[in-house]
């Protein structure tokens, strides 16, 4: 297919291969991350004036969901500072690999947990408390610190980046949606990998052994087998280790990975979790219903328990249930007959079809998040300037922007932009559903109707 190899450009290639630029970004990110934790703990408890809330939930979130994920896939993971301290311990080095590794446990991750169910659970745990998390600096600080220390702890027990790959609540959906991104890391030639001796991209190569030294894939992926972006963290280690210059970073068409969707249930449910929580957030946080906000915010009350139950019910029962119904209808011969598209009995029923078809919800889910995030990011962007000058709420004015008045920006563009995102996502998902239906020889119409209905609900919630 039509791809442009970015690593053919020598400047890009050496910038990615060299460890120093990445490390420089890591250091800045880590300092910012630690500062965000501290700001949440000692800064003003007023969320809209605390660096931790403003920079995590407005600035970082905007960059992540509006830029990083749609255009760079797991680009955020490439610069995320969370694994840095743990890897320093695990590797005994921050730059080039040593010949002698420190003696940590270095266990394999348990086979039963080699999926993203833990990430699904971690995301849902945060999602159920999101109204408190999004507005309370101390809670945000505790969550940030917990993620950092869990990552450090897991680095000493398990090999590679166990936290990133199996636990990070954010990593799960970044991976899912990175399949839509127009950027990928792939091998150039399959045969080279087959004949490659020692597979240093997966096993690592220390400095004394090879001019191309680097760590074995921190994400526990063999680059030679990469077909999807989901679990490739774009850390560039394989680019550094490959002795055959067989790794490429490519520009490619959007959502290329979804042509051959995975049939994994953990990923399928991730799609429903993300689709559902975008809709629920749009209703609870941006809607005009005060009782819903109370229920979501006052954690532990009976109203909150009902809210949590409904939240989980929508995600695990209503959305997948209606989707199964759509698939059931799609298999009915009568529907295909009346459309004149009868092409024999549809094959591949059951969970496998369910999981494969749920991949067509990925573009729609991403666009739901884009539309939802646009609203609160544009509304609250002014806080970024304020917080930049006075990150702890101590009355500083570092850049002279501490007294910028709150005011939503681009309000007249917001609703049209949301419409474009949602309708665009609908076309994208409907097209995916149609491709999948053609392959399975069933009708695409019920799944397209499902996407349409979800889009209409989201439009109604946001506009």
């Amino acid at each position: 297919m039509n791809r442009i190899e970015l690593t053919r450009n020598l400047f890009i290639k050496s910038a990615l291969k060299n460890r120093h630029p990445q490390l420089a970004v890591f250091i800045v990110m880590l300092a910012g991350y630690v500062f965000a934790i501290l700001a949440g703990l000692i800064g003003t408890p007023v969320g809209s004036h605390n660096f931790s809330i403003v920079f995590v939930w407005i600035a970082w979130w905007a960059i992540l969901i509006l830029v990083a994920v749609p255009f760079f896939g797991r680009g955020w993971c490439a610069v995320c500072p969370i694994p840095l301290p743990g890897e320093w311990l695990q590797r005994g080095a921050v730059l080039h690999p040593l010949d002698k590794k420190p003696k940590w446990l270095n266990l394999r991750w348990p086979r039963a947990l080699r999926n993203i169910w833990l990430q699904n659970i971690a995301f849902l745990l945060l999602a159920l408390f999101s109204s408190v998390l999004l507005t309370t600096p101390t809670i945000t600080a505790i969550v940030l610190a917990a993620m950092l220390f869990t990552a450090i702890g897991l680095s000493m027990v398990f090999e590679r980046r166990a936290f990133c790959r199996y636990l990070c609540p954010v990593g799960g959906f970044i991976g899912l949606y990175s399949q839509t991104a127009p950027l990928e890391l792939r091998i150039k030639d399959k045969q080279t990998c087959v004949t490659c001796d020692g597979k240093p991209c997966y096993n690592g190569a220390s400095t004394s052994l090879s001019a191309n030294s680097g760590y074995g894939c921190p994400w526990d992926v063999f680059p030679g087998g990469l077909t999807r972006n989901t679990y490739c963290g774009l850390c560039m280690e394989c680019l550094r280790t490959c002795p055959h210059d067989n790794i490429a970073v490519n520009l490619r068409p959007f959502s290329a990975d979804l042509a051959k969707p995975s049939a994994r249930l953990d990923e399928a449910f991730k799609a429903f979790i993300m689709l559902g929580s975008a809709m629920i957030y749009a209703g609870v946080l941006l809607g005009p219903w005060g009782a819903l906000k109370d229920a979501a915010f006052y954690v532990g009350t009976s109203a909150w328990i009902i809210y949590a139950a409904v939240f989980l019910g929508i995600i695990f029962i209503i959305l997948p249930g209606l989707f199964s119904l759509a698939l059931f209808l799609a298999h009915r011969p009568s529907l295909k007959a009346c459309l004149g598209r009868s092409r024999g009995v549809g094959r591949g029923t059951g969970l496998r079809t369910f999981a494969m078809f749920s991949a067509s919800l990925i573009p729609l889910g991403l666009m739901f998040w884009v539309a939802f995030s646009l609203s609160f990011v544009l509304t609250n962007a002014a806080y970024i300037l304020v917080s930049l000058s006075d990150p702890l709420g101590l009355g500083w004015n570092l850049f002279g922007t501490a007294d910028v008045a709150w005011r939503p920006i681009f309000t007249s563009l917001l609703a049209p932009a949301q419409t474009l995102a949602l309708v665009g996502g609908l076309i994208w998902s409907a097209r995916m559903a149609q491709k999948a239906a053609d392959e399975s020889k069933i009708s695409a119409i019920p799944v397209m109707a499902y996407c349409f209905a979800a889009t209409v609900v989201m439009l109604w919630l946001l506009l």
Partner: protein
Amino acid sequence: MIRFISLVVLFAAGLAVAFAPLPAPSIAPQARTLRIDARQFAYSPSELKVNLGDTVTVQLVSTDVVHGLYVDGYDVSVEADPGQTATLTFVADRSGSFRFRCNVTCGAMHPFMIGKITVEKNDLLFRSVGLATLAVIGVFPLSSLLVERKDRALAK
């Protein structure tokens, strides 16, 4: 060819749905006074409806702490202390649905203290649903067109 034409027709229909002017409303504008109670973190009533051209006076009554009310799209705002009803008057001269929100920090959930005012009709919602419908229909000719092109490319 038919597919191509149907795509063009759908696109034209989409443009019409998105931009066609609506007939001007026939109801004469009037002056309205709406009392809105504000508490942490909700307005009551939280959904308002007025007609295009109405002169709207909002009486904001705070019932716990100091709250404000800012209307998106109109860029007007007012602030009320408990015991001191504040009024905000503006002419609803833009149709559509607008969020109004608290602009005085009033506690944790302050950024999400939101209400909705609909002036005349929520045009954009109807237009968007129309666009979504056309989009879903459009996927059929679009994908056959793409499949055809792919087949032709393969044949070469």
